[in-house]
């Protein structure tokens, strides 16, 4: 069944390059999100796989079929790629009713009338938009339009479904709801989903694997938790996770295969990798600490409470240590007084050591005195 393979795919416009040498494999029935800031090339990538955009170079295979190959001059039209595409602005046809919009793709497949009726009804029911069947898109709200768009995309049962920030125009509550539904949909439909978003939370919660892209280059392609707990580089570490990771720039040196000596708040600390450390350029480190690894009221380090941000289930505490602001997250509801002194420690084996020059992940491990 459909497995999508991208090999050395590039897309260059006149004066800039949108995607550079992209290689990725999307396994059957995966739910992939393409994640990155605006303008990073994720939509272009999606559109290239769908066939709406022609790559400058490279090769794309969907299932057994090479749909694009710049060397062999193959370029299969989107209509023949057996895909579904959900546009950011829904692209509902304004002159067709909801029913006509959904039925359009089925008519193109030359389904018999009664089966179309049946399938459309099924979709309407599934997306809870039965009562809008005879309306025109301009008479629907954003959320309703979006569900119509989903119904239209899903109706022909595409094996691969591409979605371009489909939830970005919805309000927060509806967005949450739709996320759940999309995840259910993925489970129910047996299709491969490729999903573009700039919202890391959306990417994390939906995907089986996340592909992070920055300025046209793929940064990391891994399951969401992997990108969270073991980011490949500073960009990924920064982009994934909320509140964001603490980054502490410092100096130090590699002392053995698995250890390094680093300067942390004016103390010499030892970083011990869980595995052998990667290559180090020698121009300094960045220590990456997830806020949940900063334990308060314990340990020998001292800072001052800068701000406390309770959110009900957890509380974010900002600590001022020298001229550095350290973020910590605590479970439950706590409230500290501003400017109170506070002890803290760095716990666990999830601390990341980055090479300051290349930004690359050198190792994951513990930080001790």
């Amino acid at each position, binding site marked *: 069944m459909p497995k999508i393979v991208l090999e050395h795919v590039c897309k260059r416009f006149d004066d800039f390059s949108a995607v550079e040498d992209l290689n990725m494999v999307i396994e059957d029935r995966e739910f992939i999100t393409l994640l990155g800031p605006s303008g990073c090339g994720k*939509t272009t990538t999606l*559109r290239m796989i*769908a066939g*709406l*955009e*022609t790559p400058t170079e490279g090769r794309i295979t969907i299932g057994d079929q090479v749909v694009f190959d710049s060397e062999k001059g193959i370029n299969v*039209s*989107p*209509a*023949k790629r057996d*895909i*579904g*595409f959900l*546009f*950011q*602005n*829904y*692209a509902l*046809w*304004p*002159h067709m009713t909801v029913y006509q919009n959904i039925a*359009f*793709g089925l008519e*193109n*497949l030359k389904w018999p009338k009664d089966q179309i009726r049946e399938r459309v009804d099924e979709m309407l029911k599934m997306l809870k938009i039965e009562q809008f069947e005879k309306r*025109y*898109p*301009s*008479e629907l709200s954003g959320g309703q339009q979006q569900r119509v768009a989903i119904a*239209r995309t899903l109706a*022909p049962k595409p094996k691969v479904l591409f979605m*371009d920030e489909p939830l970005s*125009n919805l309000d927060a509550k509806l967005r949450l709801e739709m996320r759940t539904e999309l995840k259910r949909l993925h489970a129910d439909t047996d299709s491969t989903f490729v999903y573009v978003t700039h919202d890391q939370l959306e990417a994390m919660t939906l995907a089986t694997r996340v592909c992070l892209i920055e300025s046209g280059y793929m940064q990391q392609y891994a399951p969401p938790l992997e990108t969270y707990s073991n980011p490949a580089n500073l960009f990924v570490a920064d982009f994934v996770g909320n509140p964001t990771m603490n980054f502490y720039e410092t100096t130090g040196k590699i002392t053995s295969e698995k250890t390094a000596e680093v300067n942390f708040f004016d103390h010499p600390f030892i970083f011990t990798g869980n595995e052998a450390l990667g290559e180090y350029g020698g121009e300094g480190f960045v220590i990456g600490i997830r806020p949940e690894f900063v334990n308060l009221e314990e340990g020998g380090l001292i800072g001052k409470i800068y701000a406390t941000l309770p959110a009900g289930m957890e509380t974010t505490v900002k600590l001022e240590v020298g001229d550095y602001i350290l973020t910590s997250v605590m479970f439950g509801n706590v409230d500290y007084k501003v400017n109170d002194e506070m002890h803290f420690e760095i716990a666990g084996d999830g601390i990341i050591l980055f090479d300051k020059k290349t930004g690359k992940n050198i190792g994951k491990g513990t930080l001790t005195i």
Partner: protein
Amino acid sequence: MKKNTQKLPLGNRMKSYFSKPANVICIVFLVILIAAVVIPLLTLLIGSFKVNGNQEAIYIGGGAKDGDFTFNHWVELLTSKDFDYAKIKFWQPLGQSALMALLACVVAVGFGGIVAWFITRSDLPGKKYISTIFVFPYIMPSWAMAMFWENFFKNTEMNAGMGILQSVTGICVPERIVYGLFPCAMSLGLHYAPFAYILIGGILRNMDANLEEAATVLKASRFKILRKITLPIVMPALVSTVLLVFSSSISSFTVPFFLNKSSINSGNNFISISVQMRCLINTGFTKGQGYVLAIILMMFSIGILTLNNWFTGSRKSFTTVTGKSGQVSLVKLGKARVVIAIILLIIVTFFAVMPLLSFAMESVLEVPGDWSTFTLRYWISGEGFEGSNKGDTIGILRSSIMWKAMGRSLLLSVIVSLVAGTFGLLIGYAVARKRNSKLATTVSDLAFLPYLIPSMSFGAVYLALSYTKGFTWLDGSFFLLILVGSIKFMPFASRTGTSAMLQLSGEIEEAAIIIGVPWLKRMTKVLFPIQKSSFISGYLLPFISCMREMSLFVLLAASYTTLVTTVLSEYSRTGLSQASNAINLLIIVFVLVIQFVVNKLTGASIDKGVGGN
């Protein structure tokens, strides 16, 4: 306020109503348009129900007197069986003219629409050139194409002298291709094709490409996408085009009059409804019948307009979603790319440049087609011509009267285009902001009507007004020309203004309202710049039309020296057709130069609304 009232007091409600600029614009334009459009219309209608002058009284007979109420004009024109009068004077020409106008629509929409599609939706090379050249035929007067058509296709076999085609290839086309209904439709269609190009191209360019892509992904064939998605969405522009081309063509006088030269026996003889109308209106005996005809022609167009409104009801209308429609992927034409480009280039250049050359040629030959009579005297001779005033010379370039008139024409056209363009923009704004409101629809429809009133009748009404006590200061004044021109050419601007405004989502303006930008500033600093090129075409179209308009102004101009077109007609009346052709060429050159300057200064041009980049 002590009590909690359910409704705001009337005063406050009025205040809140008028605090919205769109409402104010609607009301103001409703008043202006009723005064400027409905009154001429009424005059026509009344004229069709009364005896207009003693000659008509004689025609009607039976003791009818000037000013009496009568149904005679309607009865006579629509039902008279004497010598098949109604059939010959009305029904048959109407049918044939409708056929001609429809054919012209097909040519204009087909040719203009196809080019618009290639320019906006494909990776055709040479777009910029094609786009620039393509609008030329519209800048020329409509009969320029007719004249060229005749010069090109006429041949000795039909005893009309040798045309270009015959002298180059020896081919003699049948007479029906040179004279009659077919060439009329072709000349008019080609003349109005740029119009279709501008209107349809504007929509195509602004249309969200995702709509088509969505259909591609759902496995619709290219043809089906065109039929089911693209066409319905460009339908409003298409209908606008059809409406404009249809009403322009069916009321065009010069082209059918010029190309009706065949003998009665040939079967090619084509007397258009507009020729009949002009004949009726210009003859003292049958003015009323002429009014009847004018009204019926307008009804035709109003019918199309209503149909259009009915088709594109608000339910199906689309609000623009700010999406990623910037990512228009151009259709790859593949190997056909160059071939199509070359074919288009040849066709477009042919119909744009050849008529110009043909003008140039006519202006330097004493005898048309005879190069041994080459002369530049109609351009540069400093001699006076028969009965010339001081400053009139045979050579138009030496004539101070021509240059002064050219200056006044330019001034008039600039003012008219500014007024009409701004009015059109405001109407567009009001219509876009107050979609679905009856008031806005009425204003928008009214703004279209001036286009449908025959120029001569329109002028005549304002002429009568300028002779009325209290308005005599208007007689022969420049202000009257500005007034009439602005109203007559507003439809162009209101159409482009409306479609451009509809492309802008309300949020763009709302964003500015929130940070407290006043209305005027919102218009000039936010809305205008975004759709600049579309709006500027809304200014350029009235400019061009005004520059070459003759029949509208001829009644109202103080003397023949007022405008360049009246000077032109004076030359041709004096028999110096070479000089009048030279002036025509000069007008075209002026328009092109101004368009070029506007383009350089603002980056916009009439074709740019479409996208010749």
